[in-house]
């Protein structure tokens, strides 16, 4: 096998050195009744050239991303990734290393995490960030668990406009804790009504959860919601799943959020059919001891040189075992690195420009699409790069018709909310040119 560096002769030498005659004897400690006496029923080994052909063929069974115009978002966004990102994360010093248990041999990874933690604090306007989590959905589950530990209360109120898959994952992760997660319906404007929210809260509420921009693309009134949450001593958790929005929108920490968490896939991580992505979580410093996941801190060696180490590990499972804050034992190292490189490359002005561009394209699309007879914007008001379009008829057949023309007209909302049969959720990034948007408008106009 080409990945194994020992020759048959060398293997014989090793076997002799340990006093064995046959490789089979290596497994004498496995009872004979359990040893597989046949080869696994798998395809024959493929030389690399054949393998590449096979995989390329499969990749071509997918939609051709160059030819199609795709207006899908809903928690995963196609953004331009500068070439430096892939170039740098492909350095094997980064990608073929593991969790930085030995700081003297891992300063590259550790410094990159320290920089990532800083970047996330800057974007979210909060004090402390961990080294990343699996994805936005599990980050929500972990944030709810954090609020539960910090407040020792059993009730969580979440806006109906948090990503439906995040709510499902959070339900799975928290299902054994006798927590009550209640959903607050949004108003006709697609927003949480702070007054109604305040009425639904009580001193048993550990946390309020909202998303910004919310799942329908609308911008929530974070400050008023924070005030309502804090009045009963609940934490405000704000989910962000389009991280590019933070180039333009206020960091929720500056508006009263206690925890900002979500998905940073937008920052240099390819769509890749849903993963690997990049969960993140930032908190006010009050909750440091309850924070799940890895953390890197600054330290000094005996000569006074500055370095970085994994720190506050006493929260973690390998020390605390069943009393740990979480069962997580890794972060999303390489995706985190990609995001740091992406943010460093875009920089202060680039992030703002990118966010402005995304919003400009979406606003243009909004004005074009809302002029199509019979179409309307059901939740009119401020949005970032995504909004809902209501069609005169059912969305699904039209969505299918447009797919045949190489247009993916967003997401039929009925996939998540069966009653919303006429709604499409559409996202617009810098990858959707004006002519693509015009094509969408024309196709919708013809097909409606």
């Amino acid at each position, binding site marked *: 096998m080409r990945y194994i560096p020992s020759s048959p002769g060398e293997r014989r030498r090793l076997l002799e050195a340990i006093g064995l005659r046959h490789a089979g004897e290596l497994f004498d400690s496995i009872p004979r009744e359990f040893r597989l006496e046949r080869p696994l029923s798998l395809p024959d080994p493929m030389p690399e050239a054949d393998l590449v052909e096979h995989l390329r063929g499969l990749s071509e069974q997918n939609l051709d991303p160059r030819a199609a115009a795709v207006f899908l978002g809903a928690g995963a966004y196609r953004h331009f990734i500068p070439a430096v990102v892939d170039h740098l994360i492909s350095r094997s010093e980064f990608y*073929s290393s593991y969790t930085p248990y030995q700081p003297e041999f891992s300063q590259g990874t550790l410094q990159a995490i320290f920089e990532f933690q800083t970047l996330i604090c800057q974007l979210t306007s909060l004090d402390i960030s961990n080294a990343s989590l699996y994805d936005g959905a599990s980050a929500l589950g972990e944030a709810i668990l954090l609020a539960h530990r910090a407040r020792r209360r059993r009730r969580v109120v979440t806006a109906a406009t948090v990503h439906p898959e995040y709510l499902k994952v959070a339900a799975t992760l928290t299902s054994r804790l006798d927590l009550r997660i209640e959903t607050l319906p949004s108003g006709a404007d697609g927003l949480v009504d702070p007054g109604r929210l305040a009425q639904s809260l009580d001193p048993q509420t550990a946390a309020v959860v909202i998303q910004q921009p919310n799942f329908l693309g609308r911008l929530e009134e974070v400050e008023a919601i924070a005030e309502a949450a804090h009045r009963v001593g609940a934490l405000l958790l704000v989910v962000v799943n389009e991280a590019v929005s933070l180039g333009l929108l206020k960091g929720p920490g*500056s508006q009263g959020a206690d925890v900002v968490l979500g998905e940073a896939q937008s920052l240099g991580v390819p769509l890749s059919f849903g993963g690997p992505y990049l969960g993140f979580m930032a908190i006010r410093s009050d909750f440091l001891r309850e924070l799940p996941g890895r953390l890197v801190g600054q330290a000094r060696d005996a000569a006074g040189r500055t370095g970085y180490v994994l720190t506050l590990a006493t929260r973690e499972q390998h020390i605390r075992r069943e009393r740990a804050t979480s069962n997580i034992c890794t972060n999303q190292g390489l995706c985190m690195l990609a995001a740091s490189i992406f943010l*460093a490359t875009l920089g202060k002005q680039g992030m703002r420009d990118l966010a402005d561009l995304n919003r400009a394209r979406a606003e243009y699309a909004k004005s074009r699409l809302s002029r199509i007879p019979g179409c309307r914007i059901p939740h009119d008001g401020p949005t970032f790069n995504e909004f809902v379009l209501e069609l005169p008829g059912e969305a699904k057949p039209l969505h299918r018709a447009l797919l045949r023309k190489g247009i993916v007209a967003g997401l039929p909302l009925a996939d998540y909310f069966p009653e919303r049969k006429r709604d499409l959720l559409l996202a617009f990034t810098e990858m959707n040119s004006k002519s693509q948007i015009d094509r969408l408008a024309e196709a919708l106009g013809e097909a409606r």
Partner: protein
Amino acid sequence: MSVEKVPPKRPEGLLFEQSTAGKRGCEVPAAQVPAAAPLDARFIRGEIEGFPELSEREVVRHFTRISRLNYGNDQGFYPLGSCTMKYNPKVNEKAARLEGFAEAHPLLPEEAVQGSLQVVSELERFLCEIAGMDAFTLQPAAGAQGELTGIRMVRAFHESRGNPRQVVLIPDSAHGTNPASAHLCGYRVEEIASDSRGCVDLPHLRERMSEDVAVLMLTNPNTLGVFESEIGEICRVVHDAGGIVYLDGANLNAFVGVARPGDMGADVMHVNLHKTFSTPHGGGGPGSGPVGVKEPLARFLPVPRVARTEAGYRWRSDFPESIGRVHAFHGNFGMVLRAYAYVLANGPGGLREIAETAVLNANYVRKRLEGTYHLPYSSPTLHEVIFSDRNLEKHGVRTLDVAKRLMDYGFHPPTIYFPLIVKGALMIEPTESEGIQELDAFIEAMIRIAREAEEDPDLLRTAPHSTPIGRLDEAAAARKPILRWTPATSKGEA
């Protein structure tokens, strides 16, 4: 000494310290559309104080420089026990970057992602065959999430029969994620002792097994690298009391293609694609932790599940007893794809050769270091061997010192102080990815270090001497944690 002739190296500062106002590393395309009316000021942030401003050139230099402060497994031997730091084939990286895969949105209609769905479906089938299981989910993002998924299914299974039960039994040699995952599923954890061979103490298990026990979480081969030879009887004891056997497949590399957990009686298991199936560890992730089950548990698997139909591959969510979702979308597809490529590259013979070579390498290291280092358990070794620092104690040298000194010889240290049942453990897992020359060089270094411990223990206690920094004061770092950079004169952030 020549060391003094080398001027001190300039440390690589943080991104933020290298930033200069007005620089940028990327231009954004033209708007093409009319400027949008500005958002209301209450939504818009001010400038982010201290956010990086660098040219592309500086970004590349910064990350290239810090990458060189890292040691990866392409640089050299990385015998980190229980982590299976094997070679990451480069063709897998190419596969993950094929545009049709990399740019596929997870919510595309099924007819637009038939290639991706075929990969998911076929890897599920391959894993079923390799593990001897009936069905797999590829949704969990890592081993620990796989454990959580598996134990949630166990709970759902018991609940469906009227009693979720209360206890999870876990051997004392297990990884810390096992008890943490069990606890998150609402179970009480009870430890099972290891016997003198380092295996599950069967009489103790018999004593603890009852109708209260939901599941035994067993790592096999265990974290000592020892195969639980009584696995058949262990499973019988658990099954007879109506319990489930969860197999932690972290160490599947030891017997892939040689034996199958499903044949031994395991009902649920997870595998780590970033271990046995070669996906890169990435400095701590992303991973992937698929979970396999036997038929009676299949109806509890997370949704959606891929199905092969006459109309092609489809997602199915119509499993009312499913535990739900553990990941948004479909899990870490990029890792699934790499693992799929790895299985195809190896074929059945290649996979068996992996196990044979990994076990051979571990036994060779054991044979040559036994005596020099104390071997706490003499049971037969599979893929990894555990030594302790007992022979070095008389020189005032500890496991940590050996690990740090190994860096001076150019090797990544083994896993240390784990498993917890061995005092001062040094856990060495060579994997199949090393040839005899590399193994011999490592062994020689270990032998020399043992001699150094006798002759010059201080050399070890102050090691490493060749790395960019020395041992860091971790206690001080935890007492007054500095967890982010802040501008020298912070005015607070907008």
